[in-house]
């Protein structure tokens, strides 16, 4: 019985000791990278990581920031909000200067809660939910927001001359729900009639019920705010049912190309993205080439580009501020006005980037086809 209290104390001691990570030399700039790196959404976080790591490597090769090398410490949240908070606490004890993260909107909001308390600079390359930066002057992002992309999509559809639109979305997922609400509002403003709005959960495999209802309403366009996995099944089942319409998606749908059996179906899909490999700008082309050289593949998930951008914005800000003080960095980020891979970037009052949006589709082999870049 004495043993038990002793054991508890030993565990506490072990915990204590384990966080005394060998103190590294001070002439390094430490950046924390927090996001989902494993599991169902791991590939988005890994794309971010690849982009960030690439930029950091290039900067270090060119002499670093303020003459010091940059090191990024990555922590996997597994998509859990509480893990994001734990990761922050852990890293903040190790002398991080700023944070890139998180990847998903939910975990980004959780992270923002704690970084805001300390005023630590945080840039998310992929959190598209509006609420992430609200009331938090230290939190930024290098990707456009859901309301923004939904609006842009509604405008695009109206410009194409389509009159009726239906939506299939997941009302228990805030990403999908947010997109739906913004899309619906803008569609109505544009004079499009929303003839059907059905809900089906992420991870469902059978959408035929909802698609049948949608088909009955005879829409010309169908908006699908889903990630690639669900969208692949939706397109296949829509085809099976004989639903002939043009399909539209948001940034999360991009990975559908690896998950769909019949690539032909992709030709009827148009979606919005933060970046396109077909983008014409010099910075974009260079990034694609560098990425290919480093990783042996194309940056198919656009978050690698926005991750690259986030690292660029952050490190440039530190350089510009000439200091690693949180307030200085935040102010410098706020003052950003530069050209990055995914376009030109400045931040508005809400700390959201004012930048371009890309429309893409696919050919029948599943290769991405660049359609249009809409600049602010």
């Amino acid at each position: 019985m004495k043993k038990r209290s002793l054991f508890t104390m030993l565990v506490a001691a072990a915990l204590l000791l384990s966080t005394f990570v060998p103190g590294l030399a001070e002439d390094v700039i430490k950046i924390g990278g927090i996001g989902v790196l494993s599991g169902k959404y791991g590939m988005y976080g890994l794309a971010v990581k690849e982009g960030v790591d690439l930029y950091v490597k290039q900067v270090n090769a060119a002499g670093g920031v303020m003459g010091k090398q940059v090191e990024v410490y990555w922590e996997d949240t597994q998509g859990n909000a509480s893990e994001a908070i734990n990761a922050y606490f852990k890293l903040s004890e190790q002398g991080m200067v700023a944070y890139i993260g998180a990847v998903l909107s939910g975990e980004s909001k959780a992270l923002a809660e704690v970084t805001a308390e300390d005023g630590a600079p945080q840039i998310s390359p992929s959190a598209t939910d509006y609420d992430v930066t609200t009331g938090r002057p230290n939190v930024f992002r290098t990707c456009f927001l859901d309301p923004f992309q939904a609006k842009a999509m509604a405008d695009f559809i109206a410009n194409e001359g389509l009159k009726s639109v239906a939506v299939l979305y997941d009302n228990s997922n805030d990403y999908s729900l947010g997109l739906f609400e913004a899309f619906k509002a803008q569609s109505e403003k544009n004079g499009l009639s929303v003839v059907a709005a059905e809900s089906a959960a992420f991870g469902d495999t059978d959408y035929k019920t909802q698609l049948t209802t949608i088909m009955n309403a005879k829409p010309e366009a169908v908006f699908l705010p889903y990630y690639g996995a669900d969208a692949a099944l939706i397109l296949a089942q829509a085809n099976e049912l004989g639903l002939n319409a043009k399909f539209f998606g948001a940034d999360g749908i991009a990975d559908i190309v690896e998950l769909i059996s019949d690539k032909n179906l992709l030709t009827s899909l148009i979606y919005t993205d933060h970046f396109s490999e077909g983008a014409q700008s010099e910075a974009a082309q260079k990034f694609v080439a560098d990425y290919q050289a480093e990783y042996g593949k194309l940056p198919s998930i656009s978050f690698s580009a926005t991750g690259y951008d986030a690292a660029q914005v952050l490190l440039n800000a530190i350089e510009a501020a000439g200091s690693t003080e949180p307030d200085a960095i935040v102010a410098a980020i706020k003052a950003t006005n530069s050209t990055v891979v995914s376009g030109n970037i400045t931040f508005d009052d809400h700390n959201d980037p004012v930048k371009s949006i890309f429309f893409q589709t696919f050919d029948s082999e599943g290769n991405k086809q660049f359609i249009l870049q809409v600049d602010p």
Partner: protein
Amino acid sequence: MDLLASQLINGLHVGSIYALIALGYTMVYGIIKLINFAHGDIIMVGAYTAVITLVSLNWSPVAALIAAIVVCVLLGLTIERVAYKPLRSSPRISSLITAIGVSMLLQNAALLLFGAQPRPFPIVLKVEPLRFGGLQISFITLLTLGITALLMIGLQAFVHNSKPGKAMRAASEDYATAQLMGINVNNTISLTFAIGSALAAIGAYLYVMAYPAVSPTMGSLPGLKAFIAAVLGGIGIIPGAMLGAFVLGIAESLAKAYISSQMSDAVVYFILILVLLFKPTGLMGKPSGEKV
């Protein structure tokens, strides 16, 4: 009206897949009174076997199906011998927990081996959907319904007329007495698991033909719903599993159509709760009591 009819057909399709899975649950439960939580994950293993043999090894669709059946049967037998047999005389709660453990094990092993990203299942059958009036029924739906019906009839015949089948029934009525009568209960149980796993493999193949995505967690929800279907129809009763599965499939489809997709899951659980409270032995079940 057309809309209702198509939703009903959707329900039948989903129901027939649940039926194939439910048959496995109900047979195992009938004999050893265990909810094999891992049954849904055996489906996942079958699906992965099929997709790997088809895509990476380039086998023919039929060969892939056979591979899936073989792998699932072996897996089912192994699980039974290693994890369930040693606990036959332990309190029920132990077997239940072990079953949960096996299920978790399969899912997480698959996650580590294959990654979380779903894999697309190639198209093996390209047949035009049939059209009746305003309705459209895909060929796969008809195939699934047909195969399920055939298998159920075959299974009923087997259980009622063959010697091993009678042994299964005897063991599920009274385990101890069956042993005393000279029935090799161990082999009977293994046979039950084998048949259940084979059915799961076939169900898995039909499932991925209809929903061509294979992922590590694909089996848990259909597995759970199939279990609910088995309970609904009367656990341990083979025709009950079919009935329960179709009722559940249709209920789910209608709930999705007329209420909402998320609530359809809640509706399914709700049905389960109602059944368990008011007729725990299920729609086709007979009451039984404990000897005091």
